[in-house]
């Protein structure tokens, strides 16, 4: 393997969505020679699909907003399972990260006085989401992409080489991280186009590979979301946390079948859209859970008045956090009050003038018109839950984004902790920016702390990685030839049916059994053709990541005997305070098997607890935590 193409960098960023690009900008600005690896073309990452906006408490539309309120909303949305330090940093730093985008050239929608406009969204107390119509993700990724080009242009002027300090490797997939004595030394990858292998030597690797939802059948995610980063981290020795928490976005398209799962932005509800069942009832009023009672309107009149006068009315229950809305839709359909295609009605046509709908929700208008022959300005949409996001992910240090493996960092969806058991809409894009930057800083600090000799890439590791990558081309000695597409379809069906939005013990045990069989069959996968842009081979390599991550999800979901956020157990329907401070953590044991362990969530600092009313804390905290609260800190729980 001495002939394999090699590159040496200070920092390797795997993933070119919002988190990866923001991390790369920071790493390069801090002086690291940085490479960005993207699985698809530059600028196509899944961030582009984000619609609603970036949550940041700039207070442009309602000046009462502040980081404290944002922190509170994030903790409530995550049902207090969030890593509190991450939630704090996120709420504090999001405004700076958004304003910074304007200096890169971003053009957000404006308020009448020329500031960045902010819109309402589920779970956010005030209008908080900076947005560009309903294509905010596109604006974010293009802005970061163009900032990277501008840095390359600066390097070009200085050195004559545009790629001198920041280079993008497009359509390259990393299959293994390389380590020496437990520290990161680089990564092994292949060019999708040619199938050629390439080794990156780098002491710091930032994972920014996004999520896992391609393991589920009905999903809003693209093919790239195969859990690569989570699997790479596990295999390198890092831990995954909270993997049982998978977000089903309440509103995906349900018809026609070929577009089932494609996202319908929450902005439709933020801008006035309402959910109705087949009987015409606005059913969300029936689903306000106890923990949120008192924060949401109890009548349609009040809910409708809120759009005009939010200070004196409570918000409509359509704007509850996503887990609540998704479960409600699921129940309505199950109880026979669904639409002809198995969803519920989402109607904005009777709520806003047609031209206003087209102006505020242009891509939704376009998407329904083009793909479903539905004119959303004249008729309701049919929507249902779709697998959208994983709250869990690689366990990281809140301040530096460092994982347990020296030199390995993670940011964005691939990292876990910030969102607890459920993510609020709009908190993803801000997550990417806040922790992308922090990961870049973390990597820079780590690299500068290294001695002169860096961890080395070992030839035997490269050889082994190459053999693993080529395995699907060799026919198995025993057993049938397996088709990667078939295994993928069966995996998606298994996760959808058995580890989906509502979970039961017996089904998850069955899921784990089926996963074992699929894992065995995956070893007999054979692909046709050669290595040049061969999608069958690419899928075969992604499959092993999907299977591994699916196992972690099923194991953690089986273990957590309560319902919280994105994890709903039919056999344990209530939230249980005893689980409030328990993280479920997956690691490899020394035989390379996944083991699940319980760990304590970091404590919430008293001054952060003091941001909540005591009456609210009693809904979440363990008795032990509450008993410690009052005598020691009279301020907390005013």
């Amino acid at each position, binding site marked *: 393997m001495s002939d394999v193409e090699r590159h040496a960098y200070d920092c390797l960023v795997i993933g070119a969505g919002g988190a990866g690009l923001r991390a790369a900008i920071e790493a390069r600005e801090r002086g690291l020679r940085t490479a960005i690896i993207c699985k698809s073309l530059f600028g196509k990452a899944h961030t582009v699909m984000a619609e609603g906006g970036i949550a940041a408490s700039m207070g442009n539309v309602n000046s009462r907003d502040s980081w404290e309120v944002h922190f509170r909303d994030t903790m409530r949305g995550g049902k207090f399972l969030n890593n509190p330090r991450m939630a704090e940093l996120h709420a504090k730093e999001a405004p700076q990260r958004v304003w910074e985008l304007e200096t890169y050239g971003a053009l957000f929608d404006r308020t009448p006085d020329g500031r960045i406009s902010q819109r309402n969204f589920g779970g956010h107390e005030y209008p908080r989401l900076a947005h560009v119509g309903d294509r905010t993700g*596109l604006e974010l990724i293009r802005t970061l992409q163009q900032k990277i080009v501008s840095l390359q242009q600066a390097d070009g002027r200085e050195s004559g080489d545009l790629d001198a300090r920041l280079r993008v490797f497009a359509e390259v997939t990393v299959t293994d991280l390389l380590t020496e004595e437990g520290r990161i030394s680089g990564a092994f990858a292949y060019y999708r186009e040619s199938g050629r292998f390439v080794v990156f030597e780098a002491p710091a690797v930032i994972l920014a590979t996004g999520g896992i939802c391609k393991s589920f059948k009905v999903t809003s995610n693209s093919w790239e979301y195969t859990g690569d980063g989570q699997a790479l981290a596990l295999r390198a020795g890092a831990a995954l946390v909270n993997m049982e928490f998978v977000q089903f976005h309440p509103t995906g398209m349900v018809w026609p079948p070929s577009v089932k799962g494609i996202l319908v932005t929450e902005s439709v509800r933020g801008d006035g859209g309402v959910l109705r069942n087949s009987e015409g009832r606005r059913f969300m009023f029936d689903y306000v859970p106890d923990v949120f009672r008192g924060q949401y309107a109890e009548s349609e009149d009040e809910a409708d008045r809120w759009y005009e006068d939010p200070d004196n009315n409570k918000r409509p229950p359509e704007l509850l956090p996503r887990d609540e809305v998704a479960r409600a839709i699921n129940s309505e359909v199950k109880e026979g009050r669904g639409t002809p295609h198995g969803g519920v009605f989402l109607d904005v046509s009777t709520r806003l003038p047609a031209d206003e709908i087209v102006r505020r929700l242009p891509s939704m208008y376009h998407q329904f018109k083009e793909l479903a022959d539905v004119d959303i300005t004249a008729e309701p949409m049919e929507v249902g839950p779709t697998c959208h996001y994983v709250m869990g992910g690689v366990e990281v240090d809140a301040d530096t984004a460092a994982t347990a493996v020296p030199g390995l960092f993670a940011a964005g969806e691939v990292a876990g902790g910030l969102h607890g058991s459920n993510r609020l809409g709009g908190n993803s894009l801000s997550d990417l920016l806040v922790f992308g930057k922090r990961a870049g800083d973390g990597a820079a600090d780590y690299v500068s702390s290294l001695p002169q000799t860096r961890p080395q890439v070992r030839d035997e590791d490269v050889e082994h990685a190459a053999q693993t990558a080529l395995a699907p081309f060799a026919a198995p000695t025993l057993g049938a030839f397996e088709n990667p597409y078939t295994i993928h379809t069966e995996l998606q069906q298994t996760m959808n049916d058995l580890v989906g939005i509502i979970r039961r013990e017996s089904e998850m045990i069955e899921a784990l059994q089926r996963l074992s069989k699929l894992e065995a069959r995956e070893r007999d996968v054979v692909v046709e053709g050669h290595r040049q842009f061969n999608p069958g081979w690419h899928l075969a390599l992604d499959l092993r990541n999907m299977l591994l991550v699916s196992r972690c999800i099923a194991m953690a979901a089986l273990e957590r005997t309560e319902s919280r956020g994105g994890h709903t157990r039919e056999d344990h329907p209530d939230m249980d305070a005893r689980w409030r401070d328990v993280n479920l953590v997956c690691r490899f044991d020394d035989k390379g098997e996944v083991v699940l362990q319980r760990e304590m969530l970091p404590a919430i600092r008293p001054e952060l607890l003091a941001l909540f009313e005591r009456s609210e804390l009693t809904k979440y905290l363990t008795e032990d935590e509450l008993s410690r609260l009052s005598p020691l800190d009279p301020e907390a729980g005013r």
Partner: protein
Amino acid sequence: MSYEGSFRVWRGDDDAGGLVDYQVEVNDGEVVLDVIHRLQATQAPDLAVRWNCKAGKCGSCSAEVNGRPRLLCMTRMSTFSPDEVVTVTPLRTFPVLRDLVTDVSFNYEKAREIPAFEPPKGVAPGDYRMAQVDVGRSQEFRKCIECFLCQDVCHVIRDHEQNKPAFAGPRFFIRIAELDMHPLDTREGRAEAAQDEHGLGLCNITKCCTEVCPEGIKITDNGIIPMKERVVDRKYDPLVWLGSKIFRRQT
């Protein structure tokens, strides 16, 4: 409703290739990309196609359907009759890598030739103030999903390979227009540079780019023509020309 559809798909690489006939199941509500995926899963597992979001938002699955530049994910099968043969070929303007996948690196090189946004000096982050009416013009161009269909259809490079070094193409003309109209960009002379350095003059306004844009951006009317007009004003107006000769800056 479901039927057996007839497809002709270009298979091959930069050396050789040709159209291959397939019979594939087509279902109600499907788009061409669904059919290509079914081909992969059932008959041609190594058929190369680029795609990502499958919702018309990322601009990856650009190809030509019956000779017309299209996004495969936004081309509904219902636009063809069941007995019609649907021909899917790679973008013609760019070199084929394999099957439906082309080498679009031309576009990324051109992107790096356009000078970046130059922020106003002395305005702190958070202090940017712009009116919606002013950002709206540039926002239209920022809807671009970089599918490069406009680049593919543009005859300046589609039919004349030799123009490629001198011509940035419609996608990057609207990038320049977007920066030129950005209320706070401080770089001077973007429209002139479009003419002098990026080949704006080669465009003869046939509007093919506007016609194929899946985002409905009025590339020609709102981007290219206003820039051409400004160039004409500055470069060819006899009075301005005279002024520039008399008052030319000493450099």
